[in-house]
């Protein structure tokens, strides 16, 4: 099991499109992927869009990503890349 901290940087937070990208990415891996609010108030299965949206993670929210499984490293990297790149919304 590996764990990493990520911050939501895109302006609208984990809204429908960002959440859709996250879920599409996460479901591409075998490992289980969980996102938890750093303040411990909510946790979500990264493979469920309904669950991800319910994190209500707006811009600036700190999250803990937890991956566990055969391809946990790859899965973690892919998901963290999305956060770092602001879900492709900050590029111009």
């Amino acid at each position, binding site marked *: 099991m590996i764990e990493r901290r990520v911050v939501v940087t895109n302006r*609208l937070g984990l809204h*429908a*499109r960002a959440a859709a990208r996250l879920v599409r990415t996460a479901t591409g891996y075998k490992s289980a992927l969980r996102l938890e609010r750093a303040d411990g108030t909510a946790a979500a299965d990264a493979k469920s869009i*309904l669950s991800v*949206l319910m994190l*209500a993670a707006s811009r600036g929210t700190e999250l803990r990503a937890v991956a566990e499984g055969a391809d946990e490293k790859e899965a973690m990297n892919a998901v963290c890349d999305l956060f770092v790149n*602001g879900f*492709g*919304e900050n590029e*111009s």
Partner: protein
Amino acid sequence: MSKRRKETGTEARWHGLGVSDGVVVGRVLRVFSGTRQAYRATLNEKDVERETRRLRAAVRLARRQLLAIKARAEKELGADHAYIFDAHLLMLEDRKLLEDVERQIQEERVNAEWAVKVAADRLLAIYAEIKDDYLRERGSDIEDVTQRLLVALSGEGPDNRNLTEDAIIVAEDLLPSAVAELDFEHARAIATDAGGWTSHTAIIARGLGIPAIVGLRDLHRHARTGDTIVVDAQQGIAILHPSSSTLKQYEALTAEALGKRQAVAEDFGKPLHTLDGKEIVLRANVELPAEYEGVRRFGARGIGLYRTEFLLSHKGAMPSEDEQCEAYVEVAQLAGEDGATIRLFDLGGDKVVGAGPENERNPALGLRAIRFSLTHADVLRTQASAILRAAKRGRLDVVLPMISDVMDVRRVRRVFNEERARLEGEGKQTGRVRIGAMIEVPAAVMTADKIAQEVDFFSLGTNDLVQYLLAVDRGNEGVADWFRSLHPAVLQSIHRTLDAARKAFIPAVVCGEMASTPAYVAVLIGLGATDLSMTASSIPRVRHTIEGIKFADAQEIARECLECETANDVEELVRVRFSEKWPQLFPPKSLPARRSAE
């Protein structure tokens, strides 16, 4: 707006905002945008498994529908509108939702419909608690998805599959999925309770050239599928159960309009002249790919205004240079030898992620349009390179929005020159583009003669010109009485601008709402406009007007208008002179409405 009129007999009228012109008589097709009722039934033990299978079949059906909608939305509306369907797909496939529904069926032994409803209500309750506005609104997506599932369970197709020849879509509001799914070939008109000028409904209806009225408050609740309805978008009126006299009146009107349209259709290819031989050019304004079809269908002489904001995905990323280049090439090819005029991004900080102040106190006067592009140099450079590259593959011009000072023009020109040098240095080919200025700010009108020395053409944006000149926000109903397109100041500004262009020997295109309204067109032509750009579907109507008037007469009336003291005086003059000069072209309802006396 949208005041419910008293019912006279069974005829009932609703007032709303006409967002796409035309008059149609047809039959109501009610489209549900929400609330399909589900009832509870208890199952026998042996039926539980069958019910689960029925649910899974419905999920598969809904999934196929969504995939089709998504593909269609991507093609016709762009990625901007399509991403939401990917979210819908994921919701439909979400294990959390499906496991919850199946558990309901198995443990509570209820029918699939009820199980879907219970699971959806539970989710919606959780969403309703979310503090973030935007995320809380995602509840409507969950409703959209669960409604689709309920329809799939009922064994019916989507509501709008069975469109008859004269179907008029009546809905509370059209959800994105419903809009993308409509069989537009058969829809004759759209009438919705909610929505505004920029709603999906409005944009798509204008693109297709079918009439649409929005903001009808509670029409949907009173209408039944199959009811006769009149949609008069010119006046913003929907009439349910029209009386025989109303019907006769409208049928005569639509027959006449149809006759006119067909008569004009034959001449689409030919150059257009007034009765006394003045040539007038009509071009198309486009934004969405859904509008491209109309450009060909209505015989536009090229594209007079291409609004590039559409290329920006939902509140987000700037399109890359390659993406932009492809889009511009497509527009150039659509426009053909007459060419297309690309307007640089008319954006404010509110539309772009991470770009400047998000809460300007006065966005209409803020960092927007050309000011935004000049401030965000990378945005301007990317767009300039994309246009220069695309211009190699088709005829393109560029117009700069919200010019208030010649300096803005010079700075943009410098960027275009630098980008051209850079591209050529990299061995990439570029094409020639002419650079024009949008004249829509009073300062630009006042200095039009100076600006004309430094640009290749003018585009008159009448909507913003009226707004800035009269200091009236056209989205604000409270000041609607002050928004007067025929205000003497507006006419003098247009006259002055056209004059400056003529003296500098540069062309001037008038684009904006005024150019698509026949009565205004006659005034514009009188003021000296010879090149108009409008929503493609307005072209036949405007063409018909121009073919029926003499330039000399229009000029004479326009001269009198310029002498008027008030907007009321101009409107009265237009009413009187137009109806005596061209009674067949301008029936009373096509002229500015008489205002109550002051």
